[in-house]
């Protein structure tokens, strides 16, 4: 094949859309199967079936691979793939063969399914189950064998202490399988659907407690999940199933496309799916390093609901459940390419039953269908936001969902724009009704990033009437923070131009009164410490050597101690002058700041040890002073406070635990001018940055240990292998190192130190929340805001009521977010909690504090 000489065969993972000239006929066939239906799924069916039949020699693995990729990566096509496979049962695999081509493909496909199941690739497994369920309705697969398959998934519910991740994934396989194929399974009197459904229901009932901690609407007074404006995904699955079963599965044809019903029953006997066992969960061994992963247990998945059932499909109804399942899968699968994801989502209606969605502008009208004709744009935005707002954290980073909505709005501005606007208004309205603090936080982030992609155009003036609400009302907090985030992404004057005059006034507390910037406390000549501060500043400006600055600071210290009168802590004052001066010379940009602190790291280290020219052990008060100096200089830019603290931790000037302590004890006083025992979103950002730093370090250290261990093992193995090959040579010195290498010893030591630091940061957090919420010294508001009566009276709440309510919200979020870490140190932490929180069984505050904790760490309520 000389004409192919210059080309290399494409790598299998390469995109085969390009360079078609390079394709083999097999690759082309596979591509046609994967890209089937782009124009008209129904029309293309017989044509593609004929093409597969006519491909000589018949290549079952290639066709089966096409099906496997098609089914697991394009869930919206599954019913049509089932129809295609049904058609492939009409002819034998080869002339005179006893089995049909379709049968052989299905046998091969099954092997792929088994591989997904063994890898616990749950999404792929579930999509294959959907495919099998459709094939069962198409009479290609026997109903009893599908029933047995679903029963093997149900067996998971009976496993001892099954994880929620595993149980919910298995539950969804069951539910989707039954929604699609229940109508044929129930025809066999020997098969009892209710047995499987009951298993699912019993399991779901055991998860009610956990739901109260992850529902997007907070109800502190209630111990039962109240899923107002939200639905839990497994609940939806069960509800859809029960609705179907109540009507004897008559609604199935109305809920999923069944293009295969056109074909007559096959002549072969139906295929019996082999028996399977869901393989046991793979245990992550965190101690030996393994992959050093933290095992994140999945929580019940609560999706926020923004629109009524006549606008977007009800996820608890069979049709709505399957539509949303498809959309969620597409969002998940195409995370690698948000642009294609947006395109596929906008094209989704063509794969649904006619009349499912209202026709879009410019398209031919769709048939009117009672209870359907939903709005695609609202459905997409609601579903994507639902996924973005899942608590405690979304599957992908929030920025993915944000970027996906941006792509949708760019592709279809006329229709998606209004859907985005309506969603923003609904979410904004929910802020008054208990929208979870973290959901509100993500909402602010989405709002700012989205607007930054669309010229910041938002009709702010419609929210002017809300300026009469108290300053800490969630709606006003939202406005303030959304603006703050917009300014971070843009600049002050730009955002000033887009807010109406009423909001631009400083009294409105929406816009800050000036652009973010650094403020050096000792800048004014009138300041009593102006001169010493200037002298330090000038040295730093002149890039003096660190030791010269230290020497000068010693002199300043002596001078101050002689001249300063009254109750002034000279050391604190000096630290404040030094750190503020350093930040001042580094205030022009992030890089300037990095340059400044890298140049004076020795000085900073000494200051953090409570010294000037000498180093020493960490000094808590000194570190507090350093952080307070940072927050003072950057009090008009919370963004910079976060950035600087992150680097102070990175350079080990302060430890995560220091930052946690500062966040609880000093942050409000420095940033808002008055000490408070409440916790807000900015404090959360600080806390998260500290805890993530501590956790990240442990992760890096464990990975290092694991890598060194592997290296040592390999070395030992090689040495042993080498020895056995060289038995003839004379005695050699010992090549196998006895014990561990020096590197490994120090890596293990680092891991121990960092693990201790992680524990201490978590413990300090628990202590902080206990002090604010449950200790005897806590404010009486803490008890007030959690009562049902107070909640219904929230229209009359003052600032401190809302601040206290928010504090409870962040405590809840901390528990559910860091739950996998908290579980590791449960004994220490509970011991600590017991010493902080008085035990009084009847006290509602302590009960709520403990219940939240128990849910977070997975204790069952007794």
């Amino acid at each position: 094949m000389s004409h192919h000489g210059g080309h290399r065969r494409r790598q299998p993972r390469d995109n085969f859309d390009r360079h078609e000239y390079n394709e083999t006929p097999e690759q082309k066939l596979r591509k046609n199967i994967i890209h089937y239906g782009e124009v008209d799924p129904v029309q293309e069916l017989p044509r593609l079936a004929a093409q597969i039949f006519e491909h000589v020699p018949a290549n079952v693995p290639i066709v089966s691979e096409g099906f496997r990729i098609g089914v697991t990566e394009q869930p919206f096509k599954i019913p049509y793939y089932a129809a295609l496979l049904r058609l492939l049962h009409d002819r034998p695999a080869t002339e005179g063969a006893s089995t049909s081509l379709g049968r052989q493909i299905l046998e091969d496909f099954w092997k792929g399914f088994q591989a997904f199941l063994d890898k616990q690739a749950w999404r792929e497994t579930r999509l294959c189950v959907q495919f099998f369920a459709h094939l069962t309705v198409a009479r290609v697969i026997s109903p009893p064998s599908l029933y047995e398959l679903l029963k093997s998934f149900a067996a998971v519910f009976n496993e001892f202490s099954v994880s929620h991740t595993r149980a919910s994934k298995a539950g969804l396989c069951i539910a989707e399988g039954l929604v699609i194929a229940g109508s044929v399974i129930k025809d066999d009197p020997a098969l009892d659907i209710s047995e499987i459904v009951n298993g699912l229901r019993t399991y779901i009932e055991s998860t009610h407690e956990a739901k109260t901690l992850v529902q997007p609407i907070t109800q502190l007074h209630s111990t039962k999940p109240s899923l107002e404006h939200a639905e839990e995904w497994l609940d939806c699955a069960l509800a859809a199933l029960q609705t179907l079963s109540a009507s004897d599965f008559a609604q199935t044809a109305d809920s999923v496309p069944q293009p295969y019903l056109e074909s007559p029953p096959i002549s072969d006997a139906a295929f019996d799916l082999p028996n399977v066992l869901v393989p046991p969960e793979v245990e992550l061994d965190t101690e030996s390093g393994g992959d050093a992963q933290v095992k994140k247990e999945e929580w019940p998945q609560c999706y926020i609901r923004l629109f009524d059932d006549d606008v977007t499909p009800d996820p608890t109804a069979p049709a709505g459940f399957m539509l949303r399942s498809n959309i969620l899968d597409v969002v998940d699968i195409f995370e690698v390419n948000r642009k294609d994801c947006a395109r596929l989502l906008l094209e989704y209606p063509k794969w649904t039953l006619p009349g499912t969605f209202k026709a879009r502008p410019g398209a031919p009208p769709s048939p009117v269908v009672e209870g359907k004709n939903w709005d695609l744009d609202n459905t997409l935005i609601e579903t994507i936001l639902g996924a973005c707002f899942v608590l405690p954290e979304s599957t992908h980073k929030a920025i993915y969902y944000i970027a996906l909505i941006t792509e949708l709005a760019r592709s279809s501005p006329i229709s998606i724009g209004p859907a985005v606007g309506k969603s923003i208004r609904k979410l904004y309205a929910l802020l008054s009704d208990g929208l979870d603090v973290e959901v509100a936080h993500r909402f602010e982030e989405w709002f700012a990033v989205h607007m930054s992609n669309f010229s910041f155009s938002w009709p702010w003036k419609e929210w002017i009437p809300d300026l009469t609400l108290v300053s800490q009302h969630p709606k006003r907090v939202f406005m303030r923070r959304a603006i703050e985030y917009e300014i971070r992404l843009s600049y002050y004057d730009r955002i000033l131009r887009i807010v109406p005059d009423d909001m631009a006034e400083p009294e409105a507390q929406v816009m800050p009164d000036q652009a973010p910037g650094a403020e050096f406390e000792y800048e004014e000549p009138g300041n009593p410490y102006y001169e010493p501060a200037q002298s330090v500043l000038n040295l730093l400006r002149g890039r003096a050597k660190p030791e010269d600055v230290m020497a000068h600071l010693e002199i300043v210290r002596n001078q101050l101690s002689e001249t300063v009168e009254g109750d002034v802590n000279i050391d604190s004052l000096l630290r404040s002058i030094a750190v503020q001066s350093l930040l001042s010379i580094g205030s022009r940009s992030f890089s300037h700041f990095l340059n400044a602190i890298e140049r004076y790291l020795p000085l900073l280290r000494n200051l953090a040890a409570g010294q000037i020219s000498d180093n020493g052990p960490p000094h808590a008060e000194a570190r507090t002073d350093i952080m307070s100096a940072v927050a003072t200089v950057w009090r008009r830019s919370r963004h910079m406070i976060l950035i600087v603290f992150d680097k102070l931790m990175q350079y080990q000037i302060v430890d995560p635990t220091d930052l946690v302590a500062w966040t609880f004890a000093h942050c409000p006083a420095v940033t808002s001018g008055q000490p408070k025992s409440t916790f807000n979103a900015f404090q959360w950002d600080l806390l998260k940055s500290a805890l993530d730093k501590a956790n990240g370090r442990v992760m890096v250290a464990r990975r290092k240990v694991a890598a060194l261990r592997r290296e040592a093992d390999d070395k030992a193995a090689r040495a042993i292998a080498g020895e056995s090959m060289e038995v003839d040579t004379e005695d050699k010195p010992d090549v196998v190192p006895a014990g561990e290498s020096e590197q490994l010893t120090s890596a293990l030591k680092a891991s121990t130190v960092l693990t201790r630091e992680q524990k201490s940061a978590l413990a300090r957090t628990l202590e902080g929340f206990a002090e604010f919420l449950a200790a005897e010294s806590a404010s009486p508001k803490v008890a007030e805001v959690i009562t049902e009566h107070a909640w219904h009276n929230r229209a009359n709440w003052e600032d401190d009521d809302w601040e206290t309510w928010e504090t409870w919200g962040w405590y809840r979020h901390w528990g559910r977010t860091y739950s996998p870490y908290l579980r590791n140190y449960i004994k220490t932490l509970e011991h600590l909690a017991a010493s902080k929180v008085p035990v009084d069984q009847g006290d509602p505050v302590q009960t709520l504090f403990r219940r939240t904790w128990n849910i977070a760490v997975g204790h069952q309520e007794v």
Partner: protein
Amino acid sequence: MAHIVTPLDQPSNYKDSQSRVDRSTQNELLSRTSTLYVGNLSFYTTEEQIYELFSKCTTPEDGGGIKRIIMGLDRNTRTPCGFCFVEYYSHAEALACLRYISGTKLDERIIRCDLDLGYRDGRQFGRGKSGGQVRDEHRDDYDPGRGGWGAQAQRAEIERKREMEVRYHDSQDVPGAVAGGGGDWKEAEHTSEKTLKRARSPEDEGDSGRGEPRPKVEEHDVGRM
């Protein structure tokens, strides 16, 4: 899931035209790099704006984060010329930017991100004849966000421009002029009395690349810029 669509985080045809390592080594380095080249920035976009957007792709709980940002400057005027490098602690974070940030707006301009071999001294300066980016010299379109006459139409832009003109005047092109951003956690040794001898210099900090192998390329000829 690369069968149906092409992932956005595949390396593009962007390259460092002055890199002297061969193509396959470059590809190898790119498959591990934690540095991004970010292009099509407004000349007035600040590092903090960049930080805000690019921090949305960080994974601090996994040891990640933004290590440093290096603003691209006009060689002659020492003013930003529309590009920068964002260096993370991990490769995965750089990839996430290709998927979620590249092609979206920052400061109302659609920016592009590409994997980069890693910053070396001197690369912060534009390589065009005029001192700015080569790419910009091929442009003849009018561009208000980049110092075109449009800036005069808006007072705010003038203020931003003025701030930007002075911000980087002190930038130097000597080795070590660009901060490292902080490396791996190290056990503190606070037992000794004197710190000066032990103190790490900023250069040392910059070179400890958190297990991410830094590209081994030949010394850059600083004077040649």
